[in-house]
């Protein structure tokens, strides 16, 4: 049952990265869109993600509940030492969620939109940035549970180049996912081309940030190269990710967009596999060489069992409904959304 729970944890993180990520990315794209095209971007965005918008963000809640029920020590250690980035991320979530809703539901059309839009766009960038920082910090070995000074315990646990690079990388991935997603949602060639360019832009950004991650890891003595290339799973996943990257560029040039989405999803999945495989089961690495392990630091057996059952039961109820939701709005053409 423990493995069932871990699978759910991993899957919710992946889904949050893919679906929530595409969502964040849509806001990031707005940041990089010229003023005259912003309106179209916004409209496409809304009709594309409106119906499943709430559902996309449930994955984060599922992940966090799994953590605090099943792996309380991991949850609390991260909560204590990464308090500040977690708080920033929360503020980002608040700002983004409410700005998104307000700008759509505000009954009066006036300059208030000029307030909501930048809040939405900037928080769409800051939230995944800090999500990445949190993820990066967890494995960077900078969390020092024995630290006595405020700076060591609560600031340098997350404020270092590696974490920041991972954060930027995450944000770039989000932008990339969103552009690829939106390519398929437009109804004219002009916008399609525009989103294709965005996809290329964010793809390059992601690759650059990826290089930055490796450089930072090297500078901070984090054996990232070994984690990624030191085992065959990592090597194969990276190979696949690279191949799909090449294929995507090719398809983009050909203007064949049908396969783009699955490929982008595939690529991000491969990246997550690479980065998590080698760590498993240790998802938090501490400064003193210690670690927190999903296998050793799980809750009591009975808790894990009931948690697993609850998740399985939930999936039976949720997944068909979710697929039907996505299916209905895909089929009926989301462009008619009100």
């Amino acid at each position, binding site marked *: 049952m423990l493995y069932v729970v871990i699978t759910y944890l991993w899957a919710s993180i992946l889904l949050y990265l893919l679906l929530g990520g595409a969502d964040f990315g849509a806001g990031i794209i707005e940041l990089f869109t010229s003023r005259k095209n912003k309106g179209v971007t916004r409209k496409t965005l809304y009709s594309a993600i*409106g*119906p*499943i918008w*709430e*559902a996309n*963000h*449930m994955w*984060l*809640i*599922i992940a*966090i*509940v799994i953590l*605090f*029920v*099943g792996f*309380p*020590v991991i*949850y*609390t250690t*991260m*909560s*204590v030492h990464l*308090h500040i980035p*977690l*708080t920033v991320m*929360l*503020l980002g*979530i*608040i700002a983004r*969620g*409410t700005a*998104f*809703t*307000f700008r759509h*539901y*505000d*009954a*009066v059309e006036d300059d208030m939109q000029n307030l909501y839009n930048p809040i939405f766009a900037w928080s769409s960038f800051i939230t995944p940035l800090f999500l990445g920082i949190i993820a990066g910090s967890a494995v960077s070995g900078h969390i020092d549970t024995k630290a006595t000074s*405020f700076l060591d*315990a*609560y600031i340098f646990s997350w404020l270092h180049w590696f974490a920041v690079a991972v954060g930027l990388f995450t944000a770039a991935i989000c932008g990339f996912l969103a552009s690829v997603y939106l390519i398929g949602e437009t109804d004219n060639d002009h916008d399609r081309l525009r989103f294709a360019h965005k996809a290329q832009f964010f793809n390059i950004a992601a690759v650059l940030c990826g290089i930055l991650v490796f450089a930072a890891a090297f500078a901070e003595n984090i054996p990232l190269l070994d984690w990624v290339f030191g085992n065959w799973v990592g090597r194969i996943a990276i190979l696949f990710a690279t191949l799909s990257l090449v294929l995507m560029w090719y398809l983009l040039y050909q203007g064949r967009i049908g396969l783009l989405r699955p490929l982008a999803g595939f690529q991000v999945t491969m990246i997550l596999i690479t980065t998590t495989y080698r760590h498993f089961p240790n998802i938090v690495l501490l400064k003193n060489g210690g670690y927190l392990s999903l296998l050793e630091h799980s*809750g*009591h057996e*009975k*808790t894990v069992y*009931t*948690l697993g059952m*609850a*998740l399985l*039961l*939930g999936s039976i*109820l*949720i997944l068909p*409904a*979710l697929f039907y*939701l996505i299916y*209905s*709005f895909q089929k*009926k053409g989301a462009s008619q959304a*009100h």
Partner: protein
Amino acid sequence: MDDFIAARSQMALSLGFHIIFSCIGMVMPFFMAVSHYYYLRTNENVYKNVTKAWSKGVAIFFATGAVSGTVLSFELGLLWPEFMKHAGPIFGMPFSLEGTAFFIEAIALGFYLYGWDRFNKWFHWFTGVIVGVSGLASGILVVAANAWMNSPAGFDYVNGEYINIDPIKAMFNDAWFSQALHMTIAAFVATGFAVAGVHALMILKGNNVLFHSKSFKIAALFGCTAALIQPLSGDISAKDVAERQPAKLAAMEAHFHTEKSAALIVGGIPDEEKQEVKYAVKLPGFLSFLAHGDFSSEVTGLDRIPKKDHPPVAITHYAFQIMVGTGMLMMLVAAIYFLALWKKRDWLSHPLLFKLFVIATPLGFIAVEAGWTVTEVGRQPWIINGIMRTADAVTPMPGIVYSFYTFSAVYASLAVFVAFMLYRQIKMVGRLYND
């Protein structure tokens, strides 16, 4: 302000904020479903307009409720890591089931909001009902977690260790039934009165009277029915508290001295130093009756409880008085409304009736906030009643004060924004729904 107080205040603020949105998120879908049902039955356009206008309100509240809830699930760890380390695996069951309920709610809301004219109309209606049912289910489930803090169950506490953990037993703790019942009814009272009050105001102003009359009636019926039964469920809660948390009951009632045929104290200013209540009205024997169903029974006073385990008496007492007071007022309003419906039809269009509801607009939510203050402050100094002290649970990180200031500012501005948004929603009713 020290960090411990800041952490408590931040928790209280976040929960106090969230509860407003969650009450509305739980109850509004039912109003919507009723009005939608009338529309499907009668084909009168006004019901469709009411449904659509409300569903926009629900979307705004849902999103705000969802983000504030997400914040809470992190805050539990950010502020109370020591508590979560031990409590998470024990009281986590309702949270993991709640996840399912939320998810279904979010999916159903997607169908509902975007499904107009796309699906079979009854299927579409039904998704709206699902939104309400799953919202209610999440509320009931999360209260199980809170009830567990009041009435810990499902584990053995031996030498500071939590062993023999049974999450199912923990979920079905003694306090769950009475709290969940009371909370669910409270959500209907609060939302019913708030919505009815806003529409009553619009009727008085003479704007879109047909639209607002229909809305008013649906909300008022829900709110008033719930307001009539709420005191009964409050009585169940009080008896429950008397059994499991005598200290909380004593604080609620400012009951300092253990005695038989204890008097119910109404109003008054408790003085914790001198152990007395000034300027109060005393109803002899009624406290015994309220707590144990017998006018002569003995009620434990604060004198039987070690000083270090006393909850703050004054706050708990005032909060309890406010809840009961507003509860009684709303019951009265409800009685008048039902009398009007039943015997005095001509009162139904009388401005005084609407004025009454306008005045009562915030009462339900005041009662909800007061009630939670009773429950939470009355449990102090414990975070897990009798097992773990709140002071031992707080995060070691210094500087929580700043976090509290930040969140206060954020919540304050959000509250302003949501109010502004609703104001604009209502202002536009005339233009958007003019057919």
